[in-house]
C-alpha cells in the first residue's frame, strides 16, 4: 500500500454526510434495526463466555500466525488447492489477473469479499480487460452505481429502495419500481445468466481452517455457493489472519458471526470448501486457487494494534457506533469504515493518510462492548491517537494547548490562573473558535475551589 498519501478529508466528509437527508434516514434505520436484532439474537446465550473463548482462539492464531499459515497452506495443497502468498495488494491483484488469463477467462463472477475491496481488485481486473460481475445484491447495486461499499456487511446500506429503483431503471433499462422483491428478481435474472456462463469465480473466505486447509463462506443470498460450485475455476482471496486452527472452532464462530452481524441466529448459507471437486462430486470447481494476502499483517501482529486482527468482520461495531450511525461509511474514504475501519485503515494505510479518521470516535466504548472477539476497539483508537501525537501529526495548536494543560495540571496556582484567564479572555476564545466556545457556559469568575476553601 502506498503510505504517503494525503490525509483523508474526514472533517469535511462528515459535515457533508450530515447534510444528506436520505443518508441520515438510511443510517437511522440500520442502527436501530441491527442493534435491536443483535440483542434479540444473543438472547440468554452465554455471550460473554463465547466471546472470551473466541478471543482466545483468535489470539492463539495471531501469536502463531506463521505456523498456522504454513499448516493451512500444507493442508489446502494436500486437498488439491493451489496456495499463493501475496505480500501486498499489487502482488495479490497480479496473481489473480494472471490466473484468469492463464485459464482464458475474460469474465469472472464474484461473491462479496472485503479483501478484494482492500486490494482494489475489480479496478485492476477491469483494466486488464476482464469483466467483473459482483453477485451479492448489495455489491451488485454499488457496482452498477460505480460506488464503493459503505458498510462491510451491508455494502449498499446508504441507498434507499427508491434510489435503487432509480438506479436499476437507468442502468438496467427496466421500469421504475421501488418494490424490493421486484428489484431483487430483476437482479436475480441477470445474475443467474452470469453464474451459468462465467468461466471463473472469485470469492473471499470468512474463515480458513488450518487443520483441513478448508475455506468457508457465510452468506445470506446463496450467491457464494453459486460462484464456488458452477464455474470451473475458483479463486479465493483471503488474508492470513482469517485462519482458525481447527474445524471444530467453526461451531463457535458460526454462532457469533451472524448474531453479531445481522442479528440472525443462523446464517442462511454456509459453504465449507476443502480442495477441488472430487470424482464422486457432482458440483464444485475443478481448479481452486487460494490467495493468502499479507499486506502488512505480519508487521501488525508485532505492533500495539495487534488485536485488531482478531476481527471477524461482523460489522457490529459500526452498527452501534454513534459517529458511523450519523455519517455512514463513505465519509471515512477508506475500505473499512466504523470503529474497526478506523483502526484497520490506520495500520494498513499508515497514519499519514488515516490519522484524521482517529477523530471519528467519542471513545464511548459501545463498539468494544459488542465486539464478538473482544477487540478493545476504543482502547486501540486511543492508543493510535497517542501514536499520532508521538509522530507529530496532531495540530500544532492542539499540542501547545495540551502542553499548557499538562503544565497547569501539575501546578495548582498556574491551573487557577488559567481558569481566571479563561473567564477574562472568554470573548477572545470565542473569536478563536466560536463554534466550540458558544456551546460552553462561560467560566465562573469565582471557581468552586475558591468558594469552598
Amino acid at each position, binding site marked *: 500500500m502506498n503510505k504517503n498519501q494525503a490525509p483523508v478529508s474526514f472533517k469535511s466528509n462528515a459535515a457533508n454526510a450530515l447534510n444528506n437527508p436520505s443518508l441520515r434516514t438510511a443510517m437511522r434505520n440500520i442502527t436501530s434495526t441491527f442493534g435491536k436484532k443483535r440483542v434479540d439474537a444473543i438472547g440468554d446465550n452465554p455471550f460473554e463466555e463465547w466471546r472470551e473463548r473466541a478471543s482466545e482462539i483468535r489470539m492463539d492464531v495471531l501469536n502463531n500466525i506463521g505456523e498456522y499459515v504454513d499448516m493451512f497452506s500444507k493442508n489446502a495443497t494436500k486437498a488439491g488447492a493451489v496456495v499463493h502468498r501475496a505480500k501486498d495488494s499489487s502482488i495479490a491483484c497480479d496473481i489473480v489477473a494472471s490466473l484468469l488469463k492463464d485459464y482464458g477467462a475474460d469474465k469472472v463472477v464474484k461473491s462479496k469479499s472485503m479483501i478484494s475491496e482492500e486490494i482494489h481488485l475489480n479496478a485492476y481486473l477491469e483494466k486488464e480487460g476482464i469483466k467483473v460481475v459482483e453477485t451479492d445484491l448489495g455489491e451488485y447495486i454499488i457496482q452498477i452505481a460505480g460506488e464503493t461499499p459503505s458498510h462491510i456487511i451491508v455494502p449498499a446500506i446508504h441507498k434507499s429502495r427508491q434510489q435503487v429503483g432509480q438506479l436499476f431503471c437507468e442502468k438496467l433499462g427496466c421500469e421504475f419500481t421501488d418494490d424490493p422483491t421486484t428489484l431483487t428478481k430483476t437482479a436475480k435474472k441477470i445474475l443467474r445468466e452470469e453464474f451459468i456462463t462465467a468461466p471463473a469465480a472469485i470469492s473471499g473466505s470468512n474463515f480458513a481452517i488450518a487443520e483441513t486447509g478448508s475455506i468457508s463462506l457465510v452468506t445470506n443470498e446463496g450467491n457464494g455457493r453459486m460462484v464456488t460450485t458452477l464455474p470451473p475455476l475458483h479463486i479465493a482471496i483471503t488474508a492470513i489472519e482469517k485462519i482458525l486452527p481447527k474445524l471444530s472452532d467453526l461451531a463457535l464462530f458460526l454462532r457469533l458471526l451472524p448474531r453479531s452481524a445481522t442479528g440472525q441466529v443462523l446464517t442462511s448459507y454456509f459453504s465449507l470448501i476443502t480442495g477441488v471437486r472430487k470424482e464422486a462430486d457432482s458440483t464444485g470447481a475443478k481448479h481452486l486457487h487460494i490467495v493468502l494476502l499479507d499486506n502488512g499483517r505480519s508487521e501488525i501482529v508485532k505492533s500495539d494494534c495487534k488485536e485488531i486482527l482478531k476481527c471477524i468482520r461482523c460489522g457490529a461495531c459500526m452498527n452501534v457506533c454513534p459517529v458511523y450511525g450519523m455519517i455512514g461509511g463513505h465519509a471515512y474514504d477508506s475500505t473499512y469504515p466504523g470503529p474497526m475501519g478506523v483502526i484497520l485503515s490506520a495500520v494498513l494505510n499508515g497514519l499519514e493518510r488515516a490519522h484524521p479518521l482517529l477523530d471519528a470516535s467519542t471513545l464511548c466504548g459501545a463498539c468494544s462492548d459488542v465486539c464478538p472477539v473482544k477487540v478493545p476497539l476504543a482502547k486501540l483508537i486511543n492508543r493510535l491517537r497517542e501514536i499520532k501525537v508521538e509522530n507529530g501529526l496532531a495540530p500544532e495548536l492542539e499540542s501547545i494547548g*495540551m502542553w499548557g494543560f499538562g503544565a497547569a495540571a501539575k501546578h495548582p496556582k498556574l491551573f487557577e490562573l488559567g481558569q481566571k484567564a479563561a473567564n477574562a479572555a472568554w470573548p477572545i476564545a470565542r473569536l478563536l473558535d466560536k463554534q466550540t466556545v458558544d*456551546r460552553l457556559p462561560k467560566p465562573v469568575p469565582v471557581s468552586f475551589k475558591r468558594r469552598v476553601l
Partner: protein
Amino acid sequence: MRVQLFATCLIDTFYPETGEAVVKLLKHMGVEVAFPREQTCCGKPPNSGGHAKQARKAAEHFISVFKGSDPVVIPSGSCASMVKNHYPEMFHDNHRMFQAATELASRTFELSQFLVHVLHAHEQGFVGNRKITYHASCQLTRELGVREEPIQLIRSIEGAEFCPMPSADRCCGFGGVFMAKLPEVSMALADEKLDTILESGADTVTGCDHGCLMNISDAVKRRGVSVDVKHLAVILAEGLK
C-alpha cells in the same frame, strides 16, 4: 467517615453549584468532606486526545495530592474511570507508580457509586416533584459498570417520577476533544439525545457527568425547549429530607 472530594475541572470552572450540592449531600449523610486544595484536573482531556505525556503529568499530580487512606469521591463517571481504570494502565512500566495508582483506584468512587454502595443513600430516600429522565454516560456505564445506582437514587426520590428515555446509554456526542474536533457530528448526536429526552416526557434530564450535561444543555438551548438539565447531585441535594 471522611472522604476527599475531587471536584473535577468542569465543576470547578463552570458549575460550582454542583460542587456545593455534592458537599451538602455528603455532609448531610454524616460524612466529613476534605477538599485537597492542590487538586487540578485528572488528565482526561489530554488522555483522550492522545497526549499521553501531558495526561501522565496530571495523573502524577493527582496521585500525589490524594494521599492517605480516605476514600476519594468524584462526581463524574469519566473522571472516576480515569483514576480507577486508566491511571494503573498508564503506569504499567513503573512499578512504584503502578502500585500507588492501583491503591488509589481501589478507594476511588464515582459519586452515585459511593452514595449507593457505601452510604446506602437510596434507602434513606429523598423528596422532590420533578419528572426525571436519566442519561447514562459512557465511561460511567461501560468502564465503571455503574448502571443501576443512579436510577436507584432517582427512584428513591419521593414525589418525583422516573421517566426512562430510549437508548439511555447511547453517547450524547460530547466525547471531550471530540466536541471540538467534529462539532457538527457532536451537535447532531446531542440533538438525537434531546429527541429521546423529549420522548421520555420528563421535565428534567439528569446524569452523572457534566461533560454530557453541558453538551445536552447546548442542544436544549439551540432548540429553545424547556427542559431542566441538572447533575444528579443537584437534584439529590435539593431533595434532602
